[in-house]
């Protein structure tokens, strides 16, 4: 099973397929908007969906390493960069829909909101971090920065994740469960990096 998965994930079709799958939420949301099925407030719904998918891709990208260690499917590591970049992609869509559709490029209003509303400030912070990580995601940049510095910088992904979850928690009304679940997953993944759990049957434990 592990070998089959590894072979599948190493095939040259694996990346294009994952790439296409990662675009499904975007295409689906655009389709729903186009057909008028995105509900009464399609603009807010697009902002919400793109934000949720940014968080989801971030968590998926972060989960790949623990998943690889638990399952021993080494090929999972190939997809970290792509899925991390998709988190950045959906975060960009999220920001663009907010700026362009929700606020309709009302820059003074947007600037005021970013400074005045902590949840927007925090969300923008997460986006700035993701932008820095995306900009330094190429092989060339890894070389230029050097492995050590690059890894230090890219640990910022956890900060972006936590900021994203906090942004979500702060913007909903009342104590809702969804942002708490996302936050708990993010903290769990962070804790795993800090104190890696070694399961008896994991490859990491045997290695």
């Amino acid at each position, binding site marked *: 099973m592990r070998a089959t998965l590894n072979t599948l994930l190493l095939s040259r079709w694996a990346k294009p397929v994952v790439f296409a799958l990662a675009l499904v939420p975007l295409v689906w949301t655009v389709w729903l908007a186009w057909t008028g099925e995105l*509900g*009464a*407030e399609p*603009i*807010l719904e697009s902002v919400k969906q793109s934000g949720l998918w940014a968080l989801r891709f971030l968590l998926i990208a972060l989960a790949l390493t623990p998943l690889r260690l638990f399952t021993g499917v080494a090929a999972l590591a190939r997809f970290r960069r792509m899925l991390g970049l998709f988190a950045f992609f959906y975060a960009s869509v999220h920001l663009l829909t907010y700026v362009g*559709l*929700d*606020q*309709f490029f009302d820059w003074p*209003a947007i600037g*005021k*909101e970013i400074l*005045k*509303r*902590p*949840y927007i400030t925090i969300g923008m912070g997460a986006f700035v971090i993701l932008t820095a990580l995306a900009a330094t995601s190429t092989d060339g940049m890894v070389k230029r920065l050097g492995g050590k510095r690059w890894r230090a910088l890219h640990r910022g992904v956890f900060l972006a994740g936590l900021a994203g979850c906090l942004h979500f928690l*702060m*913007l*909903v*009304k*009342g*104590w*809702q*469960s969804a942002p708490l679940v996302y936050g708990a997953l993010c903290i769990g993944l962070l804790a795993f990096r800090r104190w890696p759990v070694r399961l008896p049957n994991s490859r990491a434990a045997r290695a």
Partner: protein
Amino acid sequence: MLFKFPTASQAREDEVTPHGLYLSRRALIGGGAAALALGGTAFPQAARAATFQVPTTRQPADAALDAVTPIKSATTYNNFYEFGTGKADPADGAKALRTRPWTITIDGEVAKPLTIGIDDLLKFSLEERIYRLRCVEGWSMVIPWIGFPLAELLKRVEPTGNAKFVAFQTLMDPERMYGQKSWVLEWPYTEGLRLDEAMHPLALMAVGMYGEILPNQNGAPIRLVVPWKYGFKSIKSVVKITLTKTQPPTAWNRSQPREYGFYSNVNPEVDHPRWSQATERRVGDFSRRKTLPFNGYGDEVASLYSGMDLRANY
């Protein structure tokens, strides 16, 4: 009261908008060109009879500026946390709500406490009123409600001299209102008004909308509508009304007192701590519009708050 308010019999003939016209407006939006091309026979649905044949006593001054929101939006985009926090949740979840039998108990500082059944509530003199609805989240709708003034109900119980506030309570039924099992708010949902606000002729008890019985997701079988306040003040599925000496606790205020005040009058000058209230998007519109003080009802209600600091009493 100082304001003049037209009673049902004072409504001019041309102010009365039959249910069919809403349908035809929707047809106009939906089928646009086709409907226009048909010219004189453009509105075949106009013949359809509504459940409530009642006079329209109130509608926006500018029907183009405040066009009635499509019924589909008003019945699928709801905040009714008893049935989940998603906007589309109540449309499905509220099917479980049992609206018969249903009573409202009115007690507290009243001379004649009363428990009244929904069928007797439907015997009040009903009228249609087209009100703007502004949600605290920054979106708004225009809804044709069917109902009667809250004042009519309160007069029946004869509030005593001690009565200063009116507390409202939603049904508590966690088996059907599964949202009440979550801790998003303290259940049952409660709301409150000052007595003079409650007696104001604009404050409505609604039993229907769009000419029909109130859909479950909109607060069936009977709800409050206070058009100059943020939507969450307009409590749904009311079972209890208590007149009190002191300001009663209200659900959102208890949950986040800094964000949701007791008064919660629509006010573009006072931001919600987490977002601006200066603008709103009318559901169905692309761009935002400026929010009006008291949601545009200032001429009629601002006097209720004369001398009050509306920034402190948000």
